[in-house]
Protein backbone atom coordinates (compact mmCIF):
# COMPACT_ATOMS: atom_id res chain seq x y z
CA UNK A 1 0.00 0.00 0.00
CA UNK A 2 1.43 3.37 -1.01
CA UNK A 3 0.32 6.64 0.60
CA UNK A 4 1.19 9.91 -1.11
CA UNK A 5 2.67 12.81 0.77
CA UNK A 6 4.82 15.87 0.27
CA UNK A 7 8.60 15.64 0.13
CA UNK A 8 10.17 17.75 2.87
CA UNK A 9 13.76 16.58 2.46
CA UNK A 10 14.79 14.56 -0.61
CA UNK A 11 16.16 11.03 -0.53
CA UNK A 12 15.20 7.39 -0.14
CA UNK A 13 14.98 5.17 2.92
CA UNK A 14 14.16 1.49 3.26
CA UNK A 15 13.83 0.12 6.76
CA UNK A 16 11.69 -1.00 9.69
CA UNK A 17 8.92 1.33 10.83
CA UNK A 18 9.27 3.01 14.19
CA UNK A 19 5.98 4.23 15.69
CA UNK A 20 6.34 7.82 16.90
CA UNK A 21 2.90 7.77 18.54
CA UNK A 22 3.32 4.60 20.56
CA UNK A 23 1.80 5.15 24.02
CA UNK A 24 4.20 5.55 26.90
CA UNK A 25 4.82 2.61 29.18
CA UNK A 26 3.43 2.95 32.72
CA UNK A 27 5.54 2.86 35.81
CA UNK A 28 5.18 -0.33 37.82
CA UNK A 29 5.29 0.34 41.56
CA UNK A 30 7.96 -1.55 43.46
CA UNK A 31 7.71 -3.69 46.61
CA UNK A 32 8.97 -1.18 49.15
CA UNK A 33 10.51 2.21 49.80
CA UNK A 34 14.09 0.94 49.38
CA UNK A 35 13.28 -0.43 45.91
CA UNK A 36 11.40 2.76 45.00
CA UNK A 37 14.41 4.84 45.99
CA UNK A 38 16.73 2.62 43.98
CA UNK A 39 14.41 2.93 40.97
CA UNK A 40 14.44 6.73 41.17
CA UNK A 41 18.21 6.83 41.60
CA UNK A 42 18.62 4.58 38.61
CA UNK A 43 16.25 6.65 36.50
CA UNK A 44 18.03 9.90 37.34
CA UNK A 45 21.34 8.26 36.45
CA UNK A 46 19.92 7.03 33.17
CA UNK A 47 18.55 10.46 32.29
CA UNK A 48 21.94 12.02 33.04
CA UNK A 49 23.65 9.42 30.85
CA UNK A 50 21.31 10.15 27.99
CA UNK A 51 21.88 13.89 28.27
CA UNK A 52 25.63 13.42 28.49
CA UNK A 53 25.53 11.49 25.22
CA UNK A 54 23.57 14.34 23.61
CA UNK A 55 26.07 16.92 24.87
CA UNK A 56 28.80 15.12 22.92
CA UNK A 57 27.03 15.83 19.66
CA UNK A 58 25.75 19.31 20.53
CA UNK A 59 27.33 22.68 19.88
CA UNK A 60 27.88 25.57 22.29
CA UNK A 61 24.37 26.89 22.84
CA UNK A 62 22.54 23.56 22.84
CA UNK A 63 25.30 21.98 24.93
CA UNK A 64 24.95 24.80 27.47
CA UNK A 65 21.28 23.99 27.95
CA UNK A 66 21.91 20.26 28.23
CA UNK A 67 24.70 20.83 30.74
CA UNK A 68 22.30 22.88 32.79
CA UNK A 69 19.83 19.98 32.77
CA UNK A 70 22.58 17.61 33.87
CA UNK A 71 23.71 19.90 36.69
CA UNK A 72 20.12 20.16 37.96
CA UNK A 73 19.68 16.38 37.88
CA UNK A 74 22.96 15.84 39.71
CA UNK A 75 21.93 18.19 42.50
CA UNK A 76 20.55 16.39 45.57
CA UNK A 77 18.55 19.51 46.37
CA UNK A 78 16.32 18.71 43.39
CA UNK A 79 15.64 15.07 44.21
CA UNK A 80 15.72 15.41 48.03
CA UNK A 81 11.99 16.10 48.47
CA UNK A 82 11.15 13.18 46.17
CA UNK A 83 13.28 10.75 48.20
CA UNK A 84 11.65 12.07 51.38
CA UNK A 85 8.16 11.40 49.95
CA UNK A 86 9.21 7.89 48.96
CA UNK A 87 10.31 7.41 52.56
CA UNK A 88 6.79 8.24 53.65
CA UNK A 89 5.25 5.67 51.33
CA UNK A 90 4.84 7.22 47.88
CA UNK A 91 5.83 5.41 44.68
CA UNK A 92 8.85 6.88 42.87
CA UNK A 93 6.98 8.35 39.88
CA UNK A 94 4.38 10.15 42.03
CA UNK A 95 7.07 11.45 44.39
CA UNK A 96 9.31 12.71 41.58
CA UNK A 97 6.46 14.36 39.72
CA UNK A 98 5.24 16.14 42.86
CA UNK A 99 8.73 17.33 43.78
CA UNK A 100 9.42 18.70 40.30
CA UNK A 101 5.97 20.23 39.91
CA UNK A 102 6.50 22.24 43.06
CA UNK A 103 9.89 23.41 41.75
CA UNK A 104 8.28 24.26 38.38
CA UNK A 105 5.54 26.27 40.10
CA UNK A 106 8.26 28.38 41.72
CA UNK A 107 9.74 29.24 38.33
CA UNK A 108 6.35 29.90 36.77
CA UNK A 109 5.57 32.40 39.52
CA UNK A 110 8.69 34.47 38.80
CA UNK A 111 8.25 38.04 37.59
CA UNK A 112 11.24 37.74 35.25
CA UNK A 113 10.70 36.41 31.73
CA UNK A 114 13.98 34.57 31.70
CA UNK A 115 13.19 32.79 34.91
CA UNK A 116 9.64 31.88 33.94
CA UNK A 117 10.99 30.36 30.74
CA UNK A 118 13.17 27.99 32.77
CA UNK A 119 9.97 26.21 33.84
CA UNK A 120 10.06 24.53 30.43
CA UNK A 121 13.54 23.19 31.24
CA UNK A 122 12.29 21.82 34.54
CA UNK A 123 9.35 20.12 32.81
CA UNK A 124 11.81 18.58 30.35
CA UNK A 125 13.96 17.34 33.25
CA UNK A 126 10.88 15.96 34.98
CA UNK A 127 9.73 14.04 31.91
CA UNK A 128 13.16 12.66 31.12
CA UNK A 129 13.31 10.97 34.51
CA UNK A 130 9.69 9.78 34.27
CA UNK A 131 10.52 8.19 30.93
CA UNK A 132 13.55 6.46 32.40
CA UNK A 133 11.46 5.32 35.39
CA UNK A 134 8.87 3.60 33.23
CA UNK A 135 11.73 1.94 31.38
CA UNK A 136 10.41 3.18 28.11
CA UNK A 137 12.46 1.14 25.73
CA UNK A 138 11.20 3.15 22.76
CA UNK A 139 13.25 6.16 23.77
CA UNK A 140 15.63 5.70 20.88
CA UNK A 141 14.63 4.58 17.40
CA UNK A 142 16.86 1.81 16.03
CA UNK A 143 19.41 3.02 13.46
CA UNK A 144 18.07 2.93 9.91
CA UNK A 145 14.41 3.04 10.96
CA UNK A 146 11.66 5.05 9.31
CA UNK A 147 10.05 7.16 12.02
CA UNK A 148 6.32 7.23 11.31
CA UNK A 149 3.64 9.14 13.19
CA UNK A 150 1.56 12.29 13.46
CA UNK A 151 4.46 14.67 14.07
CA UNK A 152 7.95 14.67 15.50
CA UNK A 153 9.68 16.80 18.13
CA UNK A 154 13.03 18.43 17.30
CA UNK A 155 14.63 16.68 20.30
CA UNK A 156 13.55 13.33 18.88
CA UNK A 157 15.30 14.23 15.65
CA UNK A 158 18.47 15.23 17.50
CA UNK A 159 18.42 12.03 19.59
CA UNK A 160 18.11 9.74 16.62
CA UNK A 161 21.17 8.10 15.13
CA UNK A 162 21.01 8.86 11.40
CA UNK A 163 24.42 7.38 10.60
CA UNK A 164 22.89 4.23 9.14
CA UNK A 165 20.20 5.94 7.11
CA UNK A 166 16.54 5.99 8.00
CA UNK A 167 13.92 8.65 7.40
CA UNK A 168 10.87 10.47 8.68
CA UNK A 169 7.28 9.95 7.53
CA UNK A 170 4.61 12.19 9.06
CA UNK A 171 0.85 12.13 8.70
CA UNK A 172 0.71 15.85 9.56
CA UNK A 173 3.88 17.92 9.70
CA UNK A 174 5.09 20.71 7.51
CA UNK A 175 7.89 21.21 5.02
CA UNK A 176 8.64 24.47 6.83
CA UNK A 177 8.92 22.96 10.30
CA UNK A 178 12.11 23.06 12.34
CA UNK A 179 12.57 19.33 11.84
CA UNK A 180 12.12 19.63 8.07
CA UNK A 181 14.89 22.21 8.00
CA UNK A 182 17.10 20.05 10.19
CA UNK A 183 16.38 17.07 7.94
CA UNK A 184 17.31 18.99 4.79
CA UNK A 185 20.52 20.29 6.29
CA UNK A 186 21.53 16.79 7.48
CA UNK A 187 20.29 15.04 4.36
CA UNK A 188 17.71 12.87 6.16
CA UNK A 189 14.83 11.87 3.84
CA UNK A 190 11.49 13.20 5.10
CA UNK A 191 7.91 13.18 3.82
CA UNK A 192 5.02 15.08 5.41
CA UNK A 193 1.26 15.25 4.88
CA UNK A 194 0.78 11.47 4.57
CA UNK A 195 -2.68 11.93 6.11
CA UNK A 196 -5.22 9.24 5.41
CA UNK A 197 -5.35 6.29 5.60
CA UNK A 198 -3.24 5.54 8.62
CA UNK A 199 -0.59 3.00 7.76
CA UNK A 200 0.57 0.05 9.85
CA UNK A 201 3.04 0.88 12.59
CA UNK A 202 5.24 -2.17 12.23
CA UNK A 203 7.01 -4.01 9.46
CA UNK A 204 9.19 -2.72 6.66
CA UNK A 205 8.42 0.34 4.57
CA UNK A 206 9.88 2.22 1.62
CA UNK A 207 10.13 5.99 1.98
CA UNK A 208 10.34 7.91 -1.28
CA UNK A 209 11.15 11.47 -0.27
CA UNK A 210 11.98 12.49 -3.83
CA UNK A 211 8.43 12.30 -5.17
CA UNK A 212 6.79 12.09 -1.74
CA UNK A 213 5.25 8.82 -0.61
CA UNK A 214 5.57 5.76 1.56
CA UNK A 215 4.95 2.11 0.68
CA UNK A 216 3.95 -0.28 3.46
CA UNK A 217 4.51 -4.04 3.28
CA UNK A 218 6.14 -3.73 -0.17
CA UNK A 219 6.07 -6.54 -2.72
CA UNK A 220 9.39 -7.83 -4.10
CA UNK A 221 8.70 -5.94 -7.35
CA UNK A 222 8.09 -2.71 -5.44
CA UNK A 223 11.29 -3.19 -3.48
CA UNK A 224 13.27 -3.72 -6.67
CA UNK A 225 11.86 -0.63 -8.36
CA UNK A 226 12.45 1.38 -5.23
CA UNK A 227 16.08 0.33 -4.98
CA UNK A 228 16.58 1.34 -8.60
CA UNK A 229 15.18 4.81 -8.00
CA UNK A 230 17.25 5.13 -4.84
CA UNK A 231 20.41 4.15 -6.65
CA UNK A 232 19.70 6.60 -9.51
CA UNK A 233 19.17 9.32 -6.92
CA UNK A 234 22.44 8.41 -5.22
CA UNK A 235 24.21 8.54 -8.61
CA UNK A 236 22.80 11.98 -9.32
CA UNK A 237 23.88 13.11 -5.88
CA UNK A 238 27.33 11.60 -6.36
CA UNK A 239 27.69 13.32 -9.73
CA UNK A 240 26.56 16.54 -8.13
CA UNK A 241 29.37 16.32 -5.57
CA UNK A 242 31.86 17.02 -8.35
CA UNK A 243 30.16 20.41 -8.78
CA UNK A 244 30.33 21.20 -5.09
CA UNK A 245 33.81 22.65 -4.93
CA UNK A 246 33.48 24.65 -8.17
CA UNK A 247 31.81 28.05 -8.54
CA UNK A 248 28.35 27.59 -10.09
CA UNK A 249 28.08 28.30 -13.80
CA UNK A 250 25.44 27.61 -16.45
CA UNK A 251 26.05 25.72 -19.68
CA UNK A 252 26.32 29.10 -21.40
CA UNK A 253 29.04 30.21 -18.99
CA UNK A 254 26.90 32.57 -16.92
CA UNK A 255 28.16 32.76 -13.34
CA UNK A 256 25.56 32.21 -10.61
CA UNK A 257 26.20 32.95 -6.96
CA UNK A 258 25.04 30.16 -4.66
CA UNK A 259 24.84 30.89 -0.95
CA UNK A 260 23.39 28.80 1.86
CA UNK A 261 20.51 29.19 4.29
CA UNK A 262 21.10 28.37 7.93
CA UNK A 263 18.94 28.39 11.05
CA UNK A 264 21.40 27.70 13.86
CA UNK A 265 24.92 29.04 14.29
CA UNK A 266 26.08 25.42 14.55
CA UNK A 267 24.79 24.70 11.03
CA UNK A 268 28.01 26.15 9.61
CA UNK A 269 30.04 23.40 11.30
CA UNK A 270 29.18 20.93 8.57
CA UNK A 271 29.80 23.29 5.65
CA UNK A 272 33.09 23.96 3.90
CA UNK A 273 33.07 27.73 3.45
CA UNK A 274 34.90 27.29 0.14
CA UNK A 275 31.88 25.52 -1.40
CA UNK A 276 29.48 28.47 -1.12
CA UNK A 277 29.42 32.19 -1.80
CA UNK A 278 28.31 33.10 1.72
CA UNK A 279 25.23 32.85 3.91
CA UNK A 280 22.25 34.14 1.95
CA UNK A 281 19.89 33.74 4.86
CA UNK A 282 20.53 33.21 8.52
CA UNK A 283 17.20 32.82 10.28
CA UNK A 284 17.06 34.14 13.82
CA UNK A 285 13.68 32.75 14.94
CA UNK A 286 15.29 29.63 16.34
CA UNK A 287 17.56 31.62 18.61
CA UNK A 288 14.29 32.93 19.97
CA UNK A 289 13.02 29.37 20.51
CA UNK A 290 11.13 29.06 23.75
CA UNK A 291 12.72 32.08 25.39
CA UNK A 292 13.78 35.52 24.30
CA UNK A 293 17.56 35.55 23.92
CA UNK A 294 19.49 38.38 25.51
CA UNK A 295 21.81 40.66 23.55
CA UNK A 296 24.92 38.71 24.51
CA UNK A 297 23.51 35.38 23.34
CA UNK A 298 22.52 36.89 20.02
CA UNK A 299 25.82 38.72 19.61
CA UNK A 300 27.76 35.51 20.15
CA UNK A 301 25.59 33.59 17.67
CA UNK A 302 25.95 36.22 14.93
CA UNK A 303 29.64 36.72 15.55
CA UNK A 304 30.30 33.01 15.33
CA UNK A 305 28.77 32.80 11.84
CA UNK A 306 30.50 35.99 10.66
CA UNK A 307 33.88 34.71 11.76
CA UNK A 308 33.24 31.40 10.03
CA UNK A 309 32.41 33.18 6.75
CA UNK A 310 35.50 35.41 6.75
CA UNK A 311 35.19 37.91 3.86
CA UNK A 312 32.09 36.26 2.41
CA UNK A 313 28.76 37.96 3.03
CA UNK A 314 26.45 36.80 5.82
CA UNK A 315 22.87 38.01 5.45
CA UNK A 316 21.04 37.83 8.75
CA UNK A 317 17.28 38.24 8.78
CA UNK A 318 15.82 40.03 11.77
CA UNK A 319 13.47 37.84 13.74
CA UNK A 320 10.62 36.48 11.63
CA UNK A 321 8.42 35.27 14.47
CA UNK A 322 4.68 34.95 14.10
CA UNK A 323 2.88 33.07 11.34
CA UNK A 324 3.74 29.42 11.96
CA UNK A 325 6.61 30.34 14.28
CA UNK A 326 5.21 31.49 17.64
CA UNK A 327 7.58 32.67 20.36
CA UNK A 328 6.16 32.73 23.91
CA UNK A 329 6.28 36.22 25.37
CA UNK A 330 6.66 37.81 21.93
CA UNK A 331 4.11 36.73 19.35
CA UNK A 332 0.37 37.15 19.76
CA UNK A 333 -2.38 34.60 19.15
CA UNK A 334 -4.27 35.34 15.97
CA UNK A 335 -6.95 33.60 13.99
CA UNK A 336 -5.04 34.14 10.74
CA UNK A 337 -1.38 34.38 11.74
CA UNK A 338 0.12 34.32 8.23
CA UNK A 339 -1.75 37.56 7.54
CA UNK A 340 -1.18 39.02 10.98
CA UNK A 341 1.44 40.49 13.24
CA UNK A 342 4.55 38.66 12.06
CA UNK A 343 8.02 39.53 10.81
CA UNK A 344 8.86 43.24 10.75
CA UNK A 345 5.30 44.11 11.82
CA UNK A 346 5.82 42.33 15.11
CA UNK A 347 9.35 43.72 15.56
CA UNK A 348 8.07 47.28 15.07
CA UNK A 349 5.23 46.61 17.50
CA UNK A 350 7.63 45.21 20.12
CA UNK A 351 10.54 47.62 19.82
CA UNK A 352 12.00 46.73 23.20
CA UNK A 353 12.71 43.24 21.86
CA UNK A 354 13.70 44.46 18.39
CA UNK A 355 16.24 46.93 19.82
CA UNK A 356 18.02 44.12 21.63
CA UNK A 357 18.49 42.29 18.34
CA UNK A 358 19.57 45.48 16.57
CA UNK A 359 22.27 46.16 19.16
CA UNK A 360 23.55 42.60 18.90
CA UNK A 361 23.71 42.93 15.09
CA UNK A 362 25.47 46.31 15.19
CA UNK A 363 28.09 44.93 17.57
CA UNK A 364 28.55 41.72 15.57
CA UNK A 365 28.93 43.68 12.30
CA UNK A 366 32.57 44.50 13.05
CA UNK A 367 33.44 40.80 12.89
CA UNK A 368 32.76 40.18 9.21
CA UNK A 369 30.80 41.04 6.09
CA UNK A 370 27.33 41.43 7.59
CA UNK A 371 24.15 42.36 5.76
CA UNK A 372 20.81 42.60 7.53
CA UNK A 373 17.36 42.17 6.02
CA UNK A 374 13.85 42.69 7.27
CA UNK A 375 11.14 40.04 6.74
CA UNK A 376 7.53 40.70 5.69
CA UNK A 377 8.09 44.28 4.52
CA UNK A 378 4.90 45.55 2.85
CA UNK A 379 5.37 49.34 2.78
CA UNK A 380 8.37 51.72 2.46
CA UNK A 381 7.42 53.21 5.82
CA UNK A 382 8.21 49.93 7.59
CA UNK A 383 11.66 49.92 6.02
CA UNK A 384 12.31 53.55 7.06
CA UNK A 385 11.17 52.87 10.62
CA UNK A 386 13.38 49.81 10.94
CA UNK A 387 16.36 51.65 9.41
CA UNK A 388 15.78 54.56 11.81
CA UNK A 389 15.92 52.17 14.78
CA UNK A 390 19.29 50.93 13.52
CA UNK A 391 20.54 54.52 13.31
CA UNK A 392 19.29 55.28 16.84
CA UNK A 393 20.85 52.22 18.39
CA UNK A 394 24.09 52.84 16.52
CA UNK A 395 24.26 56.37 17.95
CA UNK A 396 23.51 55.04 21.44
CA UNK A 397 26.25 52.41 21.24
CA UNK A 398 28.70 54.94 19.80
CA UNK A 399 27.96 57.29 22.70
CA UNK A 400 28.87 54.47 25.11
CA UNK A 401 32.09 53.82 23.22
CA UNK A 402 30.95 50.33 22.13
CA UNK A 403 32.53 49.01 18.92
CA UNK A 404 29.86 48.69 16.21
CA UNK A 405 29.16 49.16 12.52
CA UNK A 406 26.00 49.84 10.51
CA UNK A 407 25.53 46.95 8.05
CA UNK A 408 23.80 47.36 4.66
CA UNK A 409 20.04 47.05 5.26
CA UNK A 410 17.91 45.19 2.75
CA UNK A 411 14.42 43.74 2.54
CA UNK A 412 12.77 40.42 1.92
CA UNK A 413 10.50 40.49 -1.12
CA UNK A 414 7.70 38.17 -0.07
CA UNK A 415 4.61 40.34 0.27
CA UNK A 416 3.10 40.84 -3.19
CA UNK A 417 2.83 44.62 -2.64
CA UNK A 418 6.63 44.85 -2.76
CA UNK A 419 7.01 42.57 -5.77
CA UNK A 420 4.36 44.55 -7.67
CA UNK A 421 5.69 48.01 -6.77
CA UNK A 422 9.42 47.60 -6.03
CA UNK A 423 10.13 51.22 -7.05
CA UNK A 424 8.98 52.34 -3.58
CA UNK A 425 11.99 50.51 -2.09
CA UNK A 426 14.84 51.99 -4.12
CA UNK A 427 16.52 52.98 -0.81
CA UNK A 428 17.02 49.38 0.26
CA UNK A 429 20.59 48.10 -0.06
CA UNK A 430 19.42 44.78 -1.53
CA UNK A 431 16.38 42.59 -2.17
CA UNK A 432 16.05 38.96 -1.19
CA UNK A 433 13.05 37.14 -2.61
CA UNK A 434 11.42 34.84 -0.07
CA UNK A 435 9.81 32.51 -2.56
CA UNK A 436 7.98 30.38 0.04
CA UNK A 437 5.98 33.28 1.41
CA UNK A 438 5.69 35.10 -1.92
CA UNK A 439 4.15 31.94 -3.40
CA UNK A 440 1.77 31.38 -0.51
CA UNK A 441 0.53 34.98 -0.68
CA UNK A 442 0.21 35.09 -4.47
CA UNK A 443 -1.55 31.71 -4.60
CA UNK A 444 -3.52 32.19 -1.35
CA UNK A 445 -2.37 28.74 -0.23
CA UNK A 446 -0.96 28.39 3.28
CA UNK A 447 2.43 26.73 3.17
CA UNK A 448 1.73 24.58 6.23
CA UNK A 449 -1.52 23.17 4.88
CA UNK A 450 -1.05 19.86 3.08
CA UNK A 451 -4.55 20.09 1.59
CA UNK A 452 -3.57 23.04 -0.62
CA UNK A 453 0.04 22.00 -1.25
CA UNK A 454 -0.67 21.54 -4.98
CA UNK A 455 -1.45 25.28 -5.22
CA UNK A 456 1.77 26.22 -3.50
CA UNK A 457 3.74 26.22 -6.75
CA UNK A 458 6.59 28.64 -7.27
CA UNK A 459 6.57 27.82 -10.99
CA UNK A 460 3.09 29.20 -11.47
CA UNK A 461 3.38 31.92 -14.16
CA UNK A 462 2.01 34.55 -11.75
CA UNK A 463 4.80 33.93 -9.24
CA UNK A 464 7.52 33.70 -11.89
CA UNK A 465 6.33 36.93 -13.51
CA UNK A 466 6.70 38.76 -10.20
CA UNK A 467 10.17 37.30 -9.63
CA UNK A 468 11.22 38.38 -13.14
CA UNK A 469 9.89 41.89 -12.55
CA UNK A 470 11.82 42.25 -9.29
CA UNK A 471 15.01 40.93 -10.92
CA UNK A 472 14.61 43.40 -13.80
CA UNK A 473 14.00 46.30 -11.41
CA UNK A 474 17.13 45.40 -9.45
CA UNK A 475 19.29 45.28 -12.60
CA UNK A 476 17.94 48.65 -13.74
CA UNK A 477 18.57 50.37 -10.38
CA UNK A 478 21.76 48.53 -9.44
CA UNK A 479 20.11 46.85 -6.43
CA UNK A 480 21.36 43.28 -5.87
CA UNK A 481 18.52 40.73 -5.98
CA UNK A 482 18.80 37.21 -4.61
CA UNK A 483 16.34 34.44 -3.78
CA UNK A 484 16.44 32.46 -0.53
CA UNK A 485 13.29 30.32 -0.60
CA UNK A 486 13.16 26.54 -1.00
CA UNK A 487 12.77 26.99 -4.78
CA UNK A 488 16.40 28.10 -4.98
CA UNK A 489 17.57 24.60 -4.09
CA UNK A 490 14.96 22.73 -6.12
CA UNK A 491 16.51 21.35 -9.33
CA UNK A 492 13.06 21.43 -10.96
CA UNK A 493 12.62 25.15 -10.26
CA UNK A 494 16.18 26.38 -10.90
CA UNK A 495 15.88 26.68 -14.73
CA UNK A 496 12.78 28.87 -14.39
CA UNK A 497 14.44 31.06 -11.76
CA UNK A 498 17.52 31.67 -13.91
CA UNK A 499 15.30 32.37 -16.93
CA UNK A 500 13.46 34.90 -14.78
CA UNK A 501 16.77 36.76 -14.49
CA UNK A 502 18.05 35.67 -11.08
CA UNK A 503 21.81 35.10 -10.71
CA UNK A 504 21.99 34.74 -6.95
CA UNK A 505 20.36 31.84 -5.09
CA UNK A 506 20.54 30.71 -1.48
CA UNK A 507 19.84 27.07 -0.69
CA UNK A 508 19.84 24.56 2.18
CA UNK A 509 23.39 23.26 2.77
CA UNK A 510 22.42 19.70 1.78
CA UNK A 511 21.12 21.01 -1.58
CA UNK A 512 24.26 22.93 -2.49
CA UNK A 513 25.77 20.29 -4.75
CA UNK A 514 22.48 19.40 -6.49
CA UNK A 515 21.71 23.08 -7.03
CA UNK A 516 25.08 23.72 -8.66
CA UNK A 517 24.64 20.63 -10.81
CA UNK A 518 21.18 21.82 -11.88
CA UNK A 519 22.57 25.29 -12.69
CA UNK A 520 25.23 23.72 -14.93
CA UNK A 521 22.40 22.18 -16.96
CA UNK A 522 20.66 25.47 -17.73
CA UNK A 523 21.35 27.22 -21.02
CA UNK A 524 20.88 30.88 -20.06
Amino acid at each position, binding site marked *: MRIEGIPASPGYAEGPLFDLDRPRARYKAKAGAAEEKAALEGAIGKAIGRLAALVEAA*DGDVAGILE*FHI*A*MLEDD*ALSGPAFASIGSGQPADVAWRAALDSEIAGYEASDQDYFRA*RAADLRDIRDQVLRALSEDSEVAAPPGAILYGEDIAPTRFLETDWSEGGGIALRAGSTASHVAMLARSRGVPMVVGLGIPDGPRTGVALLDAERGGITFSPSPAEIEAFRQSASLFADRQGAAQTFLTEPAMTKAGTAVRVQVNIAYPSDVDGIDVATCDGIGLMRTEFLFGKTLPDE*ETQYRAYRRVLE*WAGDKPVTIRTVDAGGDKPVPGFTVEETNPFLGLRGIRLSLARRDIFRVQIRALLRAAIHGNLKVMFPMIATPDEYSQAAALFAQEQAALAALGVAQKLPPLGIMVEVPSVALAPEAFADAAFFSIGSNDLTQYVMAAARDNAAVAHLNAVRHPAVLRLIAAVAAFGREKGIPVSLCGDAGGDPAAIPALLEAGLRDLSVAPAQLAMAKAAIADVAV
Partner: protein
Amino acid sequence: MSASAEATVLITHTVGLHARPSVKFTKLAKSFTAEVEVAVATNGPWFDAKSIVKVMAAKAPKGTMLHIRAKGDGARAAVEALVDLVQRDFDEDADHARSA
Protein backbone atom coordinates in the same frame (compact mmCIF):
# COMPACT_ATOMS: atom_id res chain seq x y z
CA MET B 1 40.70 26.38 63.48
CA SER B 2 38.27 27.55 60.85
CA ALA B 3 39.01 30.22 58.24
CA SER B 4 36.24 32.40 56.88
CA ALA B 5 35.92 34.98 54.14
CA GLU B 6 33.23 37.19 52.69
CA ALA B 7 32.87 39.45 49.63
CA THR B 8 30.30 41.27 47.54
CA VAL B 9 30.35 41.47 43.76
CA LEU B 10 28.15 43.16 41.15
CA ILE B 11 26.65 40.82 38.54
CA THR B 12 27.25 42.46 35.16
CA HIS B 13 26.40 39.48 32.95
CA THR B 14 23.36 40.30 30.79
CA VAL B 15 21.13 37.52 32.04
CA GLY B 16 22.45 37.52 35.60
CA LEU B 17 23.15 34.41 37.61
CA HIS B 18 21.05 32.11 35.46
CA ALA B 19 21.27 28.73 33.80
CA ARG B 20 24.68 28.58 32.18
CA PRO B 21 26.46 30.96 34.56
CA SER B 22 24.98 29.00 37.48
CA VAL B 23 26.44 25.77 36.13
CA LYS B 24 29.89 27.34 36.09
CA PHE B 25 29.42 29.03 39.44
CA THR B 26 28.37 25.88 41.29
CA LYS B 27 31.02 23.75 39.58
CA LEU B 28 33.70 26.16 40.75
CA ALA B 29 32.23 26.30 44.26
CA LYS B 30 32.26 22.51 44.45
CA SER B 31 35.99 22.46 43.70
CA PHE B 32 36.62 23.89 47.19
CA THR B 33 36.23 22.00 50.45
CA ALA B 34 35.07 25.13 52.28
CA GLU B 35 31.37 25.60 52.89
CA VAL B 36 30.28 28.37 50.48
CA GLU B 37 27.03 30.33 50.52
CA VAL B 38 25.50 33.13 48.45
CA ALA B 39 22.79 35.70 49.09
CA VAL B 40 21.26 38.61 47.24
CA ALA B 41 20.77 40.63 50.44
CA THR B 42 23.19 41.17 53.35
CA ASN B 43 20.73 39.69 55.81
CA GLY B 44 20.15 36.57 53.70
CA PRO B 45 18.58 34.16 53.09
CA TRP B 46 21.85 32.37 52.37
CA PHE B 47 21.90 29.61 49.77
CA ASP B 48 24.34 26.72 49.36
CA ALA B 49 26.65 27.88 46.53
CA LYS B 50 27.36 24.28 45.55
CA SER B 51 23.71 23.53 44.73
CA ILE B 52 22.54 24.77 41.33
CA VAL B 53 18.93 24.32 42.43
CA LYS B 54 19.52 26.70 45.34
CA VAL B 55 21.65 29.16 43.36
CA MET B 56 19.00 29.39 40.64
CA ALA B 57 16.42 29.94 43.37
CA ALA B 58 18.35 33.06 44.43
CA LYS B 59 17.01 34.64 41.20
CA ALA B 60 19.84 37.10 40.77
CA PRO B 61 19.41 39.19 37.62
CA LYS B 62 21.97 41.58 36.10
CA GLY B 63 22.76 44.44 38.45
CA THR B 64 22.37 42.33 41.59
CA MET B 65 24.97 42.73 44.36
CA LEU B 66 25.84 39.12 45.08
CA HIS B 67 27.13 38.33 48.55
CA ILE B 68 29.45 35.37 48.86
CA ARG B 69 30.74 33.89 52.12
CA ALA B 70 32.81 30.83 52.90
CA LYS B 71 33.88 28.92 55.98
CA GLY B 72 36.57 26.28 56.39
CA ASP B 73 39.64 25.20 54.45
CA GLY B 74 40.46 27.49 51.54
CA ALA B 75 37.59 29.85 52.36
CA ARG B 76 39.46 32.91 51.13
CA ALA B 77 40.57 31.24 47.89
CA ALA B 78 37.02 30.06 47.24
CA VAL B 79 35.53 33.53 47.66
CA GLU B 80 38.24 35.12 45.53
CA ALA B 81 37.80 32.58 42.73
CA LEU B 82 34.01 33.00 42.69
CA VAL B 83 34.22 36.80 42.73
CA ASP B 84 36.68 36.62 39.86
CA LEU B 85 34.33 34.36 37.86
CA VAL B 86 31.45 36.81 38.28
CA GLN B 87 33.69 39.73 37.32
CA ARG B 88 34.79 37.87 34.19
CA ASP B 89 31.11 37.61 33.21
CA PHE B 90 31.37 33.84 33.67
CA ASP B 91 33.78 33.59 30.70
CA GLU B 92 30.84 33.55 28.36
CA ASP B 93 32.84 35.09 25.51
CA ALA B 94 35.88 32.92 26.04
CA ASP B 95 33.61 29.91 25.77
CA HIS B 96 32.35 31.17 22.51
CA ALA B 97 35.90 31.30 21.17
CA ARG B 98 36.40 27.67 22.16
CA SER B 99 33.29 26.40 20.45
CA ALA B 100 33.75 28.53 17.32
